């Protein structure tokens, strides 16, 4: 009874909101929780108004929670996929949904701040090319002079009661969106990292972890039986871990080295073959790019078959790294070509629109190849596995490869944002169709994955990959374009300027004449434009990082000390128990009742 009284005393001291949360988190049955609440409500005397207010706020928060759940996109489908295929396959679909939200936000922002003012109040855009169906594929033709691309945007300042500078709007919308993306990615990466990596022993793929991570949401009988079988295999593997001899280790390292060399050579070969391409405007370049992205990873998986990995995770990681290297180098070569050659060429009227069209074509062809890849990789492979070569069986859903495809597609959209503000709309359509396509392909063609797969850690790796190579690369391209390259003289919102960033400089110069805004100009001149400031910031951040690192080392030492202390307490406990038993044995002629009482008072 005293436990309950202590609990009630503790809960009465809290505010109503905390109290509700604390009661919910008690590990008791529903009846007992109701009991506790009844006792608390009896002991606390609240004014009627206050009670009503608290209830009102609570109802609001619950309604918001329910509403959020009702609006969640694809909730039923996600549950179905999670039930049949497990959480690791579900991470792909969750990732797809998350990226879709980025694109929806980008489209809404771009459309409202850049396109709508132009369409409603801006000058009319004349085009003498009629619409033919081919535009959907090439992005050129009719689309060239529409609001789809950079070239159609004007550099005027609209004056309809309110002044609206289209140049500044274009610049700031793009920049602010990219910065917000960066912040969102940083936060989700940091929280995911903290949850899944820092608190986890990195080397432990231990048996205990395998047992505790049984996926309770699996509902299919076949899936459950298969998981059980695989768990049994993994456990018996762990129980018989054999050590490799030196010779075997050398052999494995040699094979690894060889595979990496060949992979890097392949990637370098692909990248250099692009420098021979002079024409960036044809459909051939996107086709070749997508073909390489489809075919070369097949070689990588071939190498994988010869290599031997100690655990499943390093196998996936090495495959992912190779694929990332391939895609980054191809994209890098293309961007170099656009930045250095296309922008300097005098024959183009509007080089930004050309680059925008090239990116549009890349996005469309990438989508077509994704569909083809799904057809060959999943449908045909299923047909082969079930009808022709029965031993192979249906294919598994390759989460790593598919997520990498998504990240690559999103990078194309991010790079293309500056040159084609409405590209996110194409991306939204693409992701929408892709979701349903992959879902159908998954349920019809694939079998549930064999290994349980470390879904949470894989998710962290994917977000990390999205951020570090791809997002940073995209924002560097956009930054370089805005900072260093000359905009076209005849089209687009930055025509006539030396470089796009001059828009901000001109605005700041204009602000100087306005009273009361001296501080903004001062900040711009002395902080944003000065290099000393960034140097100092970097030094300070490095110092703080070093301090945190030392703190972590100290905490690690503390954890070891505390663990040792627990072990010692356990030893003390068993020592005392042994001593007690010896004492009891050495006094055999004790009254049994008295002896029993004695024992009870000493039981720990």
């Amino acid at each position, binding site marked *: 009874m005293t436990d309950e009284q202590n609990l009630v005393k503790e809960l009465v001291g809290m505010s109503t909101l905390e109290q509700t949360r604390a*009661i919910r988190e008690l590990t008791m049955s529903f009846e007992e929780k109701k009991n506790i609440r009844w006792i608390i409500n009896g002991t606390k005397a609240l004014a009627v108004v206050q009670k009503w207010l608290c209830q009102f706020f609570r109802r609001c928060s619950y309604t918001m929670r*329910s509403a959020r759940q009702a609006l969640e996109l694809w909730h039923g489908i996600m549950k179905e996929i999670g039930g049949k295929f497990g959480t690791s396959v579900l991470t792909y679909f969750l990732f797809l949904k998350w990226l879709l939200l980025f694109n929806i936000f980008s489209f809404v922002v771009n459309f409202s701040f850049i396109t709508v003012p132009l369409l409603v109040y801006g000058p009319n855009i004349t085009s003498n090319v009629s619409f033919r169906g081919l535009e959907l594929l090439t992005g050129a033709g009719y689309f060239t002079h529409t609001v789809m691309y950079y070239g159609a945007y004007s550099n005027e300042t609209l004056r309809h009661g309110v002044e609206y500078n289209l140049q500044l709007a274009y610049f700031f919308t793009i920049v602010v969106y990219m910065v917000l993306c960066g912040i969102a990615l940083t936060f989700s990466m940091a929280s995911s990292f903290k949850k899944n990596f820092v608190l986890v022993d990195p080397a432990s793929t231990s048996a205990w972890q395998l047992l505790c991570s049984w996926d309770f949401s699996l509902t299919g009988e076949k899936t459950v039986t298969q998981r059980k079988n695989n768990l049994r295999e993994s456990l018996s593997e762990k129980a018989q871990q054999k050590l490799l001899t030196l010779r075997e280790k050398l052999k494995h390292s040699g094979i690894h080295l060889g595979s990496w060399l060949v992979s890097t050579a392949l990637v370098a070969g692909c990248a250099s073959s692009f420098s021979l391409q002079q024409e960036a405007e044809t459909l051939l370049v996107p086709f070749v790019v997508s073909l390489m992205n489809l075919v070369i990873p097949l070689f990588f998986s071939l190498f994988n078959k010869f290599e031997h990995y100690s655990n499943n995770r390093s196998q996936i990681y090495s495959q992912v790294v190779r694929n990332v290297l391939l895609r980054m180098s191809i994209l890098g070569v293309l961007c170099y070509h656009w930045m250095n050659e296309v922008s300097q060429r005098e024959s183009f009227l509007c080089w930004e629109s050309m680059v925008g069209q090239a990116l549009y074509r890349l996005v469309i062809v990438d989508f077509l190849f994704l569909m083809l890849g799904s057809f060959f990789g999943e449908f045909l492979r299923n047909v082969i596995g079930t009808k022709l070569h029965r031993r192979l069986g249906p294919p598994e859903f390759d989460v790593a490869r598919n997520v990498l495809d998504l990240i690559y597609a999103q990078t194309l959209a991010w790079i293309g944002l500056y040159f084609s503000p409405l590209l996110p709309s194409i991306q939204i359509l693409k992701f929408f169709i892709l979701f349903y396509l992959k879902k159908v392909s998954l349920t019809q063609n694939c079998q549930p994955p064999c290994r349980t797969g470390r879904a949470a850690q894989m998710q962290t790796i994917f977000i990390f990959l999205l951020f570090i190579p791809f997002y940073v690369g995209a924002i560097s391209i956009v930054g370089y374009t805005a900072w260093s390259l000359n905009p076209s003289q005849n089209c687009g919102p930055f025509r006539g300027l030396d470089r796009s960033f001059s828009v901000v400089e001109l605005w700041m110069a204009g602000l100087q004449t306005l009273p009361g805004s001296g501080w903004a100009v001062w900040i711009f001149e002395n902080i944003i434009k000065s290099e000393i400031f960034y140097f100092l910031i970097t030094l300070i951040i490095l110092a703080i990082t070093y301090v945190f690192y030392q703190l972590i080392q100290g905490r690690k030492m503390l954890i070891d000390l505390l663990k040792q202390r627990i072990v010692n307490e356990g030893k003390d406990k068993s020592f005392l128990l042994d001593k007690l038993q010896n004492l009891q044995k050495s006094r055999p002629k004790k009254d049994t009742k008295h002896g029993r009482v004695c024992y009870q008072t000493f039981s720990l």
Partner: protein
Amino acid sequence: MGATASQLDTGKLSEYEELTFLTKQEILLAYKRFDKLVPKEEKNRIDYRVRMEDILELPELKFNPFKERICKVFSTSDKKDGSLDFDDFLDFLSAFSESATLEIKSHYAFHIFDFEDDGTLGRQDLKQLVNCLTGKADKTSLTADEMKQLINNILAESDIDKDGTVNLSEFQHVISRSPDFVSSFKIVL
């Protein structure tokens, strides 16, 4: 279960909402599914306890290796027969919901894995756990040597005070280092 057989009154609904981690829609859906398990003649009885055999027919639990343990752990019946009334059913869904905290999940996971109901996970509990997850519950699917090695590894890793069993705090410590646990310990209707 309310005045009419097919509706939950709003007072009870808000009480359920406050004391569990479920949202209103989830509670209503649970009510609908629970109602289907109640035979027609008992529909007007409040606190009717559905038998364990009927609960185990739910598609979410049908092929779960821990289905009997789940029913036994969440049941508050005096006969200890695993029967659940609606409050117990909501308790079960709340512990397995997305918003439940790690402490709640690890607490209930500990009790589900504690086959002998003695408050700690001893060698026999661990052996039964492994059997449950790798094949038939009564037949050992690993060899005796493998099983011994495996249980030794488990105890070496998680038994911090070296008393031969894993108690609740040690279990929670291991779980806190396993990031997949929270996302795997989920059942949604």
